[in-house]
């Protein structure tokens, strides 16, 4: 905590070294969070870069007391991602393009087996996210996959804790409905079938 306080003070003071440290610590997390909210790795890279620049410009908002600055960065990244993907329709379009691209990856070499597992896991997650509204998607990624508690997520998003809880609850209910729906006879475990894909990856 002392180290975090020191880092916060240096960030607030505009110490470039503190931002380099912040970048080394959390860039990967911001990058992956941005990907889940944009469904595009290149856009995620842009969002990550914009997030840190915005963090620099917003450094006077950092208080000297508090824990990790990761929730603050993830909150900025969430805003930046919104600037890129303004509508659910666009998110679904980008996600569809991502999943279509993944389908063309080679599947014959043993060495790519791990990558394909990774790809299928990501595909299942993105497919699930396309079923949610943006606010639900944001709290799910923050709380479930980035591991923020309700308070940190609320702070990151600038909403009350109760809102985080209710959005998460709605997200769970929506996904549960999808998974609990009886499978159709013709359903195949392919990337464009989110329900079977989620089932398959979860097993």
């Amino acid at each position: 905590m002392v180290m975090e306080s020191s880092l916060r003070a240096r960030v607030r003071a505009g110490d470039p070294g503190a931002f380099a440290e912040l970048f080394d610590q959390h860039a990967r997390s911001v990058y992956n969070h941005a990907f889940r909210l944009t469904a595009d790795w290149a856009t995620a890279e842009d969002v990550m870069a914009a997030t840190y620049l915005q963090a620099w410009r917003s450094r006077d908002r950092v208080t000297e007391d508090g824990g990790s600055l990761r929730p603050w960065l993830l909150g900025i990244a969430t805003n930046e991602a919104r600037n890129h993907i303004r509508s659910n329709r666009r998110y679904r379009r980008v996600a569809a393009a991502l999943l279509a691209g993944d389908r063309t990856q080679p599947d014959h070499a043993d060495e790519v087996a791990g990558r394909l597992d990774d790809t299928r896991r990501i595909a299942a997650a993105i497919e699930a996210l396309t079923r949610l509204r943006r606010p639900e998607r944001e709290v799910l990624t923050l709380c479930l996959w980035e591991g923020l508690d309700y308070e940190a997520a609320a702070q990151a998003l600038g909403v009350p804790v109760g809102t985080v809880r209710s959005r998460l609850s709605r997200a769970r209910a929506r996904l549960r409905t999808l998974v609990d729906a009886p499978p159709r006879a013709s359903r195949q475990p392919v990337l464009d079938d989110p329900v079977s894909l989620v089932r398959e990856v979860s097993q």
Partner: protein
Amino acid sequence: MSAPDPSEWTGIAPHPGARDLPPGRHELHRDRLLAAIAQETRTPGVARTWRRPALAAAALVLVAGVGAGLAATAGDDPPAALPAPVASRPAARPAPPGGTAKIQGYGTVRHLTATADLVVRGEAQSAADGRVVYRVAEVLYRASHAPVSAKITVLAPEATGRATVLYLALSDPLTPAYTPLGGDVGIFDVTGDTVTSRSATRSVTGLRAEHATTAGRAFVTTLPELRQVAAERG
């Protein structure tokens, strides 16, 4: 409980895992960030204020109000992620008589597009007294209230015979006449399919997101990219 119970999510939201940035990109982005910080530290008055649309517009209101006794309206709100403004830009230009104040800071082509009443490609045919007759070859974007014909009047000192893309505000609905957004920020020179911002020091830094590394340099993109961003506004 202050965090979700993972067991409640089993089977419905599998963790997607996490990837590293592509090789070399972590270092690249960190270097870019530090370069941007160094640049903003050297020139805080410029770098920290010109991207703040609301403040630039507020400065405009002040200048217009004192100098000409004209009422001017503030511009768009800044994007949600922008921090609260702390200073104003002193050199905001007064609005043309009868026009709407639209001199702002613009970080991206998307922002220019979102603010413009008209985005056109063409070239100046003749110029006199700061008024240019501009021949329109292509309309990339037009707001419903913005009239456009084969030739429009642009209030800017523009050389003739030079292919450009202009991001314009309707400054005089009666004439009608247009003014480039942000002065030369809204002017791009066109060579083939390559588009280059007229000003290096007052230029956007990206299409949809600001890029620290291009700050202070002319921004280069392509016509298809500008068309795409314009189409996204619809």
